[in-house]
């Protein structure tokens, strides 16, 4: 996608493969860096703003989570349980989150436009800005650009996801590869963050110098985006080699592992806590397969608890550590699910009225935002677009979302949809 903005970018798949391989191999040669004290992260000391975005890909059902609407024609079969906020109920599948509802806000009237995954996911994660002929960055890349790394020794944007890892530069859009995501496939740290014992520090330095020289030569004949991606990859690898303790699972207690859950999402959210503590600016945690067109109720019974437990645990832990004032946690999907139940006892895509949750970093505590129709199907009153959410997120991170601009090829570009605005009701 980045190639649309830079016709000189090399799209040869061989080079793409080489990039990955080079990241793995040369990353292992970069050597130990500074000896930072890992126990106190720079970000925490400086009260830097940080973000953890928990992305439930496919669309969690609002009826089986944040907005059960018992006794109405579209309600599901699960119990509606009281929360720590008087008068507010969640689905019984959110029993852990119900206990910390007084620490979070839930927006129940997200009203977006795109009912499809293929277009909806990028549209939502880019904030659906006005089309100005450029490819906007995903939220993590945007925050990386606008705030920079919270700790210069760490990558600003880490994406924990099932499947493969690598450096995902396409998320950066027109910002350029430097603001891409370092993806940890299945939560694994990048390969070869230990310098092999057979390579001395001197040899390692010499190899890095050779690599940089080769890159300069390569850059002379090609577009900058790919080279930026390569170099950013190496820089990240070098930085991570110096901070490899942030991937050390042995520092996590058995009790915490049980609290967060042994399933991938639980493990990955616990890892996100570890990376937030270390000082990573923006962490996205992905879980796939929430697109419950079939067997929604059996699946929700098994899926929703997988986010309920670790989300509640994360908010509790951040609060206990005094981090919740500066760390924003967001739980969301690209849309919700239909009020109607289909022929496979599933729920389909529903952008018309759906829910998400926010916590920390100047987000109100115990607030339920938005009025829906009695049956939960439609927004009654104010609906919020994804652009409104982007303004809100930027605002609580201390960014003036109405005035800040990206600069791209001489063009000044709004960082969020010009016609949207922050959701004041959700902010302190």
């Amino acid at each position: 996608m980045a190639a649309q903005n830079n016709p000189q970018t090399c799209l040869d798949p061989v080079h793409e493969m080489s990039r990955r391989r080079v990241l793995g191999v040369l990353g292992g040669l970069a050597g130990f860096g500074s000896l930072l004290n890992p126990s106190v992260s720079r970000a925490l000391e400086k009260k830097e703003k940080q973000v953890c975005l928990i992305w439930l890909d496919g669309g969690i059902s609002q009826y089986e989570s944040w907005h059960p609407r018992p006794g109405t024609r579209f309600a599901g079969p699960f119990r509606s349980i009281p929360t720590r906020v008087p008068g507010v109920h969640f689905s019984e599948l959110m029993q852990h989150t119900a206990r910390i509802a007084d620490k979070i806000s839930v927006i129940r009237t997200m009203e977006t436009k795109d009912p499809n995954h293929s277009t909806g996911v990028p549209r939502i994660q880019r904030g659906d800005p006005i089309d100005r002929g450029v490819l906007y960055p995903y939220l993590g890349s945007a925050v990386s650009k606008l705030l920079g790394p919270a700790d210069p020794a760490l990558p600003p944007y880490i994406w924990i996801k099932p499947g493969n890892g690598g450096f995902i530069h396409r998320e950066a859009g027109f910002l350029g590869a430097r603001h891409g995501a370092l993806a940890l496939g299945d939560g694994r740290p990048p390969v070869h963050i230990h310098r092999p014992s057979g390579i001395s520090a001197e040899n390692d330095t010499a190899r890095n110098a050779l690599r940089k020289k080769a890159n300069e030569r390569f850059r002379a004949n090609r577009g900058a985006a790919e080279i930026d991606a390569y170099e950013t990859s190496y820089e990240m690898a070098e930085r991570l080699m110096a901070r490899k303790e942030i991937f050390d699972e042995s520092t996590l207690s058995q009790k915490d592992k049980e609290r967060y859950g042994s399933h991938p999402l639980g493990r990955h959210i616990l890892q996100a806590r570890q990376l937030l503590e270390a000082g990573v600016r923006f962490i996205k945690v992905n879980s796939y397969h929430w697109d419950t067109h079939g067997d929604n109720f059996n699946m929700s019974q098994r899926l929703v608890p997988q986010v309920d437990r670790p989300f509640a645990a994360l908010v509790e832990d951040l609060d206990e550590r005094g981090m919740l004032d500066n760390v924003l946690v967001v739980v969301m999907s690209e849309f919700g699910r239909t009020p109607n139940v289909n022929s496979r006892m599933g729920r389909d895509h529903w952008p018309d009225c759906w829910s998400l949750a926010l916590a920390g970093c100047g987000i109100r505590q115990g607030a339920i935002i938005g009025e829906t129709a009695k049956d939960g199907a439609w927004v009654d009153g104010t609906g919020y677009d994804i652009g409104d959410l982007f303004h809100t997120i930027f605002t609580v991170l201390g960014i003036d979302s109405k005035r800040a601009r990206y600069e791209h090829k001489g063009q000044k570009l709004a960082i969020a949809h010009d016609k949207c605005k922050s959701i004041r009701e959700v902010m302190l």
Partner: protein
Amino acid sequence: MKAPPLDIRKARVSAEFKHPSQLFRAKFSPCGKTIAAIGVDTAVHLWNIEDKTEKSFQAHKTWVSSICFSPAGNELYTADYHGVIHCWNYLARTGSKPRWSIPAADRNNVRALAVSGNGKFLFSAGDEGVVRTWDAANGKLLKELKGHTECIFSLAVHPDGEALVSGDLLGSIRRWEIPSWEEAGELDARVLHTRKDNFIADVGGVRSLAFSPDGKLLAAGGFRDAKSNAFCPGTPAVLVFDWSKGTSRSELRLKAKSDGPINGLCFLEDSTLAGYGEHLHSATELSFWDPAKQAPVHSLSGQSAYDLDLHPDGRRLLAPVYVSGGTSGNGARKRHREKYSPNETVLRIYDLFAETKKPEPVK
């Protein structure tokens, strides 16, 4: 009056009962004059087949998940997603209260109910993976049958009254002796369960169980080879077991394209097996099989259905069939807000015999 000869090739819809919300279980009463159905609302719905009058019972607080009649007497048992069982007199007037109730028959969803052939025992099973035996007369707990390691979807009582089977998510079918309640073995239906590394939930399970009238065959319905835990698309399948040997004899498939489980299964008196499929937003079929052959010997196209029951006369089938309310599928649908409505059901009775021509009026 002598019943007409069974002829599945002449099967046809003979009666329909429409309902404005989705129903996923439907049964004939033992007297054959009433049908009862439950689904996504809290009511138990009953229709008189002859005069088509409708009545309902209210006591459940959530979706009603399973239903069965006692083969002896006028008891109707219903259970729900919150673990509650109610016993009703199905002949009672609309609005009548349950005779008795069990408030916590399971931690959550009671997914299956069955009654022993003599009407003495009520069996329930669900999310806890425990089969519970109750005194069918008063709801007193008699025995808990433990052995499953996952939730149980289905139950069936052998025609000789001496065995009960329960099928779970993992494809384990367990045999229990009545009335010793000893576990008497396990049948392997694991093909009906799918777990893959990239799934975040197990998919499938033994969704339906049925014995042949002579008790020699047990059929287990579900779907195999699920491709994801999201759409949960798979290949509908029925496994037929030799009951005396406990071994699988054959695997049956639908002919029409379908992607969901076979939730409705029943044997006819000649051991023809009938089953109904599910399909996302498309038609599927009611199929009839020779249990020894994979492909159906006859099929009728129709929208998805979630249950299948044989009338006591052996000549009629009942299925709760999905009807789109016209606004199904993905949003955004704000402009259709006024028209947006729940999907519906038609309870369809299929006659399984040749239609007799009415005599020409005498001129």
